[in-house]
C-alpha cells in the first residue's frame, strides 16, 4: 500500500501539522513515511502545502505532481491541486471560502464543514483535526489509536492536555464528512 497525499491551504490553518500527525501515525504502524513541505517565501502568510506519503515499501520521490488524495482548504489550492488528483482518487475539502467547487467527474469528492464546526465547538485550533477526521473516515489508513500516539509524539508535552480535544475533533470530522460525488 502506498498513499500519496497533498494537504494544501493557508499558512496558519495547521496544514503542516496535520501532515506531521499523519506521518507520525504511519510510523506508529511501522510504515515508511515522508513529509515534504513547500518552503520558502510562501510560508510567510501565503499558501502552504505539504506532501505526505505513507507506504509499506521504501518511498521513492518525496516530491510529486499527482496524488491519491488532495486535502484542500482554500480556493488557491483548489485551483492548483484539483487537477493533480489521480483518476479514481480522492479530493476532500472544506467548502468555507470556496467559490469554485470541484468539478471533476473522475474522482471521489467529499466535503467537511470543518471551519464552521470548529467555530461551533468554540475551538478554532482543532480545525485541522476535524478535516483529518473526515479524511480518515473516507480512507481509514491509520487507526485512531495510532493517530493518538502520533499526536503524543508530535505535540510538545505542554500541549498533551489538549489531546482529548483533538480526539474529539477527529471523531467529529468523521461524523460530518459528506460525499459530494463518487465514482
Amino acid at each position, binding site marked *: 500500500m502506498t498513499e500519496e497525499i497533498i494537504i494544501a491551504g493557508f499558512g496558519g490553518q495547521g496544514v503542516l501539522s496535520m501532515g506531521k500527525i499523519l506521518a507520525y501515525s504511519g*510510523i506508529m504502524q511501522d510504515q*515508511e513515511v*515522508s513529509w515534504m513541505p513547500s*518552503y*520558502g517565501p510562501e510560508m510567510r502568510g501565503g499558501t502552504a502545502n505539504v506532501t505526505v506519503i505513507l507506504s509499506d515499501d521504501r518511498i521513492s520521490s518525496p*516530491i510529486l*505532481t499527482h496524488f491519491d488524495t488532495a486535502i484542500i482548504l482554500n480556493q488557491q489550492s483548489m485551483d492548483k491541486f484539483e487537477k493533480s488528483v489521480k483518476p479514481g482518487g480522492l479530493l476532500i475539502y472544506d467548502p468555507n471560502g470556496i467559490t469554485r467547487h470541484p468539478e471533476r467527474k473522475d474522482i471521489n469528492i467529499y466535503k467537511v464543514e470543518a471551519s464552521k464546526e470548529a467555530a461551533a465547538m468554540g475551538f478554532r485550533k482543532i480545525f485541522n483535526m476535524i478535516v483529518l477526521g473526515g479524511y480518515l473516515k473516507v480512507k481509514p489508513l491509520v487507526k485512531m489509536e495510532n493517530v493518538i500516539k502520533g499526536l503524543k509524539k508530535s505535540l510538545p508535552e505542554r500541549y498533551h492536555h489538549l489531546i482529548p480535544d483533538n480526539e474529539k475533533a477527529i471523531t467529529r470530522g468523521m461524523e460530518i464528512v459528506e460525499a459530494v460525488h463518487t465514482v
Partner: protein
Amino acid sequence: MGKELRLMKGNEAFAEAVIRAGADGYFGYPITPQSEVMEYLMAEKPHERTGMVVLQAESEVASINMLYGGAACGKKVLTSSSSPGISLMQEGISYLAGSELPCLIMDAMRGGPGLGTIQPGQADYFQLTKGGGHGDYNLIVIAPSSVQEMYDYVEISFDLAFKYRNPVVVLTDGAIGQMMEKVYIGDQKPRLTEEEIREKYPWATLGKTPDRERNIITSLDLDPYRQERHNLHLQKKFKEIEENEVRYEELNCEDADFIIVAYGTSARISQKAMDIGREKGLKIGIFRPITLWPFPKKEIRALSEKVKGILTVEMSAGQMVEDVRLHASEKIPVEHYGRMGGVIPTPNEIVEVIENLFVKG
C-alpha cells in the same frame, strides 16, 4: 542502525547526528535553506549534552576560518551553509585542504548563480567536486538522498575526514533538508579528551610539550620544490581516496536497458520515474553515486557497456553529466536532463525524456 526512531527533517537529523558523533564545535552563519541546523543545535544545548561548542559567527568567511582553527587542534568541527555561503568559504576550504585538516562542511544547495533562489538546486557540483578554491585539491563529497542518510553520513564523513586529513562535504539541498522521514538514531559517542587527541593526532596544535617539536599548521611553503613535494603528497592521498572510498547504490540495474544516473533529491525523483517507466515496459535502472568525489568511474564504465543509454538527471544545466561522459563507453548515448533555478524535475518529465531520447529517437 540505531534503535531510537524519530520523524525528523533532514537538517535536524544532520544536527542531531553531529551531536551524537561527538563533534566538538559547530561554527556557522544563517542562510536558507539550512538554518535549522544551527537553530536545532542551539535549542539542544549541546554544551550541556556533550560539551560541544556552537557559535554563530559574523560571516561564512569567519565560520570556515573558525573550522580552520578548531581543526588544527584535532577537534571535530563542522559548518553548514548554502551555495552563496559556500562560495564565500572557498578560500578557507583551500587552506584546510592545503594544511591537511579534517572537517565537515554541509552545503544545502540552492538555485543560482548569484543570490539565485532558496529552492533546491544541484549546481554546486562543479564547485565542490573539482576543488572549488585555488590550488590542486579535492574534497570528499558525499550526497545523501534521504533523511536517514543525512544522519548516517555525518559520522562516516567525520571518520573519512580524519582518516585522510581532508575536508569532507555533505552535499545536499533544501528538499532533503526540509523533508521529514523516519530516522533511526544511534547512541551518543563520547568526545575525545585532549589526551586522546594528542595520542591519535600527534600533528594537532594543542601546545608544544617537551617530548616533541612544535607543531605548525600551515599551507605556506615558499620553497617551490618543497611545495611541489607537498602537492605530490596530496595527489597521492587523493589517488588513495579514489581507490578506496567510492560509494554508490544501484537499483534495478541488472536487467536495465536505460540507466538514470542521479544523486540526492534527483535520485529520489528518478526512482519514481523508474517505477512509472517500468510499468510502461521501459527497463530503467538507477545508478546513484553517493560519493560524487571520488566519482564511481569504473562502475559507470562497466554499466555503460551493457545498457542502451544513460540519462543524468540533475537540478543544473548539466554538471555531473561531464563526469559520466568521461567514463562511459562512447558506444552509447549519454544525455542530460536538468531543471534549474529551484525547479524540481518531475518523474513524468523524466520518463518522457527517456522515451523521446532513447526509444522514439
